[in-house]
């Protein structure tokens, strides 16, 4: 062997056979003279054990240690190994090693080139996208569909028939694992491309792909994976199946509901203000403090509308003298009634009888309307004479429980964002906008026609809208925040509020089911049903949170399929649904957040919805507390009990699962792995839910709104300073000056703010001064000054316009990572509070013991 190599080397002119680059070089170039002289002494030696040499070369010290070999072979670069004398073997080995390296490099290069070419193509494709005016294409498409050539019924039927046929074909054809894998890849690839196209059309394509994948999964699940032989397994399997069917149904209904969000804009009003109708503004209140109501009334007073056509009424179910006095002082109406029958609905109905405006605008007592509220909304009533109700979003300028306790305020869309950002716009397209109880205008005529606000259920608002729709009236939604308020303060009140919604929706579902009865279009029925069905997620969510445990604990196979096959079927379903939803809802709900929001509530809404279904009259109305404050951060043990139990169950499951993976069930590792992954995911979501139960401290009574408004400071010596607000509230301002400026605390100043061109100055005191930051607190404002303050701040027409501009974009992986971190934090906080609680317990026991001793 050796002589041959040397011979070849010599003839090629490779004077150093251990240098592979030289071999390569000599294969293509001839050596020059002085290189040839060295050729006579090729420095090659012999060595017996190639393994020894390799070990030495790599730096492996203990040759029998496998780990060291692995370590040095794959992890520590060979450059570190000591060089020793050469040998033929070494030559040979290095040669092969290097050739392999070369080969590897070239393959890598080719792959990279391929990837680069592909990504270049991808970029080309993508760069082509923005050149198209997608809005225009969308409009043209809409126009086409309206033309008579498309309106032929036979054409429609042919299309429907065709698509149903192909749909059926794709959904029911069985594939091998490879076929299913290709199906996954192709669908995914198409979706990844399509979602880059802006506009609404791609949303439809993504929806179609997702429906395809989900239906295919559903079909397979239904026909191939139900264990029918054993009773117990079958029972659990059907439970999971039902939960899946529920989510599948809600997914599909949701797609229909949100297929084409209407995105209504404001309409201008006639120039002649004498044509404008009269409007009564109702502000119902029951037990909220005056401090909460006051700004709302003052903001309502500032609504830009002919003053002889705007009447404001406080509807006080608490019948408080303080409120009566305030109403008088503020110059607004004050209405009370002898009883509190039917709560808010009854309150509104009572006021309806005593007032006469053509329209009624309703604001919960903590929703401050902006001054452009009526000007921006009333236009639609002029255009659409059948329009009975117009809703605007409920916007919150304080963080809700999730946002406060997880620290995601204004970064991640909150729970309400999906409903007001997308679902209502989607409903609007089908003429199924719901009334949401506040921040809405209703035409008095139709409202009286349906007998006023509905009193049969606890969600009087949605039910009233349903009744209006049944009479053939239209409703509208404008997705521009024209009023804003405080979000629920604590987790318990948040849950209380959602329980009420869930109960109310279940009640409507039971007593006035949208699928039954007259007057609704098919799509209105779908929108209403989805809204109601949505609140039945309690049990399905719990099933998903515990399903993998049945296997991990009892080895029950509730899905009878090979793990790999299950993964191949379920992945396209989940991926496509995720992609479609990220595309449709991305700006209103980040990926995976629905799981967190739902998991927090799941346990609590099961009972209310179930009771409401069986006995719609049972239970009692609860009012959500607002304007409260949490003085110390604390962990809400009571509320979080169900999640802690679930988390504990899952942790035990995970531990058992690890045992199964390594020791007991090594014959079905795939199944174990799948269930483990599912459990881990559930644990993260539950951790985030537990994190929400850690109530962060909240000290300010009046919430501060971040804002950048010009402010003038007037000092007592007659000098002034321009600066800008950092935040404002009803009680003070945070100011940002151009440069450092120290002021003594308690110094009196005046601050002026502008409302359009008009300036208002307010007396104030300095409460903090740091560098270029200044905190001032208003000093005994008169009611008129407070009204002006509201106009300059909360009630500005553009106050909430660009609220979510700074929000993060939805990136599923990022979102997942974030939730995973929240999950970890949740457990950490649980652990800390647990040990704190234990320490306290021990202390109290010791104290008790001590007392016993004395």
């Amino acid at each position, binding site marked *: 062997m050796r002589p041959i190599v040397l011979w070849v080397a010599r003839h090629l002119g490779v004077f150093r056979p251990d240098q592979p680059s030289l071999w390569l070089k000599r294969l293509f170039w001839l050596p020059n003279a002085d290189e040839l002289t060295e050729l006579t002494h090729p420095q090659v030696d012999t060595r017996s054990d190639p393994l020894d040499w390799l070990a030495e070369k790599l730096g492996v010290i203990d040759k029998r240690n496998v780990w060291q070999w692995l370590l040095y072979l794959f992890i520590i670069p060979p450059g570190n190994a000591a060089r020793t004398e050469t040998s033929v073997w070494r030559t040979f080995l290095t040669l092969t090693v290097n050739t392999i390296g070369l080969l590897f490099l070239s393959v890598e290069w080719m792959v990279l080139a391929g990837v680069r070419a592909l990504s270049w193509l991808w970029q080309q494709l993508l760069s082509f996208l923005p050149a198209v005016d997608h809005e225009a294409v969308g409009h043209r498409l809409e126009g086409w569909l309206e033309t008579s050539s498309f309106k032929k019924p036979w054409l429609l039927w042919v299309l429907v028939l065709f698509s149903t046929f192909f749909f059926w074909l794709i959904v029911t054809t069985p594939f091998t694992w490879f076929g299913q894998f290709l199906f996954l890849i192709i669908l995914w690839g198409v979706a990844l491309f399509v979602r880059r196209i802006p506009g609404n059309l791609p949303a439809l394509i993504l929806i179609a792909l997702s429906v395809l994948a989900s239906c295919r999964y559903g079909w397979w699940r239904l026909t191939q994976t139900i264990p029918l032989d054993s009773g117990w397994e079958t029972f659990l399997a059907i439970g999971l199946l039902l939960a899946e069917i529920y989510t599948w149904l809600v997914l599909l209904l949701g797609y229909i509901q949100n297929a084409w969000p209407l995105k209504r804009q404001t309409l201008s009003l006639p120039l002649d203000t004498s044509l404008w109708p009269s409007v009564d503004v109702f502000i119902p209140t029951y037990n909220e403090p005056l401090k909460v109501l006051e700004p709302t009334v003052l903001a309502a007073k500032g609504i830009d509308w002919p003053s002889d056509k705007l009447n404001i009424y406080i509807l006080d179910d608490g019948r408080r003298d303080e409120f009566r006095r305030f109403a008088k002082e503020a110059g607004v109406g004050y209405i009370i009634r002898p009883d509190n029958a039917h709560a808010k609905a009854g309150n509104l109905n009572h006021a309806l009888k005593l007032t006469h405006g053509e329209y009624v605008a309703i604001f919960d007592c903590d929703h401050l309307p902006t001054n452009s509220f009526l000007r921006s909304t009333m236009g639609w009533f002029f255009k659409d004479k059948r329009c009975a109700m117009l809703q605007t979003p409920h916007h919150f300028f304080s963080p809700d429980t999730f946002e406060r306790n997880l620290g995601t305020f204004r970064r991640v869309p909150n729970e309400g964002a999906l409903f007001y950002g997308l679902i209502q716009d989607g409903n609007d397209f089908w003429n199924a906008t719901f009334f949401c109880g506040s921040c809405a205008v209703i035409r008095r005529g139709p409202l009286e026609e349906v007998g006023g606000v509905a009193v049969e259920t606890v969600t009087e608002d949605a039910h009233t809208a349903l009744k209006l729709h049944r009479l053939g009236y239209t409703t509208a939604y404008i997705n521009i925040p024209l009023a804003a308020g405080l979000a629920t303060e604590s987790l318990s009140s948040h849950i209380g509020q959602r329980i009420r919604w869930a109960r109310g929706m279940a009640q409507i579902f039971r007593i006035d089911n949208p699928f039954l009865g007259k007057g609704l279009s098919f799509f209105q029925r779908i929108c209403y049903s989805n809204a109601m069905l949505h609140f039945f997620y309690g049990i399905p969510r719990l099933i998903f949170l515990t399903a993998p445990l049945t296997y991990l604990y009892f080895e029950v196979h509730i899905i009878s399929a090979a793990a790999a096959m299950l993964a191949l079927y379920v992945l396209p379903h989940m991926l496509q649904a995720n992609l479609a939803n990220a595309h449709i809802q991305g700006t209103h709900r980040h990926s995976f957040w629905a799981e967190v929001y739902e998991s927090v509530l799941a346990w609590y809404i099961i009972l209310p919805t179930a009771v409401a279904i069986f006995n719609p009259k049972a239970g009692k109305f609860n009012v959500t507390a607002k304007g409260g404050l949490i003085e110390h951060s604390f962990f809400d043990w009571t509320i979080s009990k169900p999640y802690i139990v679930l988390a504990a169950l899952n942790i035990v499951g995970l531990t058992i699962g690890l045992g199964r993976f390594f020791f007991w069930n090594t014959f079905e590792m795939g199944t174990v792995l799948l269930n483990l992954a599912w459990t881990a995911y559930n644990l993260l979501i539950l951790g985030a839910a537990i994190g929400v139960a850690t109530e962060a401290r909240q000290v300010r009574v009046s919430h501060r709104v971040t804002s950048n408004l010009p402010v*003038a400071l*007037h000092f007592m*010596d*007659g*000098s*002034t*300073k*321009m*600066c800008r607000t950092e935040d404002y509230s009803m009680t003070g301002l945070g100011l940002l*000056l*151009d*440069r450092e400026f120290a002021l003594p605390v308690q110094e009196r100043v*005046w601050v*002026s703010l502008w409302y359009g*061109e*008009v*300036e*208002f*100055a307010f*007396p104030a005191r300095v409460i903090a001064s740091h560098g270029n930051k200044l905190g001032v607190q208003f000093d005994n404002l008169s009611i008129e000054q407070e009204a002006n303050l509201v106009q300059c701040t909360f009630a500005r027409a553009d106050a909430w316009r660009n609220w979510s501009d700074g929000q993060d974009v939805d990136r599923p992986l990022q979102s997942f990572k974030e939730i995973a971190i929240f999950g970890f934090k949740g457990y950490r906080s649980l652990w800390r509070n647990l040990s704190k609680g234990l320490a306290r317990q021990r202390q109290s026991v010791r104290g008790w013991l001590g007392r016993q001793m004395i």
Partner: protein
Amino acid sequence: MFKIAIVSAAGGVGRSTLTASLATLLAQREIAALALDFDPQNLLSTLLGSDEASLGGLLPDFLTGKEFGKSALVNSNEVVCLPFGRANEASLVTFEQHLRAEPEWLKKCIAQIDYPSGAFLLMDTPRLPSPFVRQAMVAADLVLAVLAPDVRSLALLPAVETTLSRCAPESQLIYVVNGLDSTRAVQSDLLARFRSTLQMRLFPYPVHRDEAIPRAVANSMNLQSLSPDSLVAHDLNGLLNWLLVGPASSLDGRVQV
């Protein structure tokens, strides 16, 4: 050249102050500004930083038959000021007679000055009624009528318009409120009255009362560098911006100093 006459019916409302401040701000933006004192009080040069009231000026020049504008001064801010010059009773009487006889005297004199076309001419005047104001109004492209947020200005509100419609009906008239103390409710109410009476003819943003103004004069420093973030600096800059994009926007090629 864009010519502005700064006038008022009531005295002490801040005409001279506005004239001087606007001229200084213009110069600071490298726009040529000429402040013309057409008030026998002869105070503008003092406001623009000269130590004592100037002896020479347009009246002595007129009496001695010198060319108009020969005795202009330039201050450290590059503002050119043509003072009125010292006057005595007799010379004033002669001058006023001359002005009455020749209503376009000032206009003609200004037309003779060789000044860049993108420049600004700001004319300070005594309070109405006076032949000096009428001359300035005739010469001006824009009449800036200064109001104080007090009852005097409210009562005298029609005076400027009456005079203007008699002597220079084509000139544009804009009212501006100076010396507003927004912490005083009375003044805000008066401002609202002005707003509702004058509507579009009132410049929407008033110039506030601010200690920075007398302080700047006392230290003979310019407002912008003494208290750049004061409210009044903000107001004056706003007024100037509005002038530049509005009435004065038709000026061809604003020429640098």
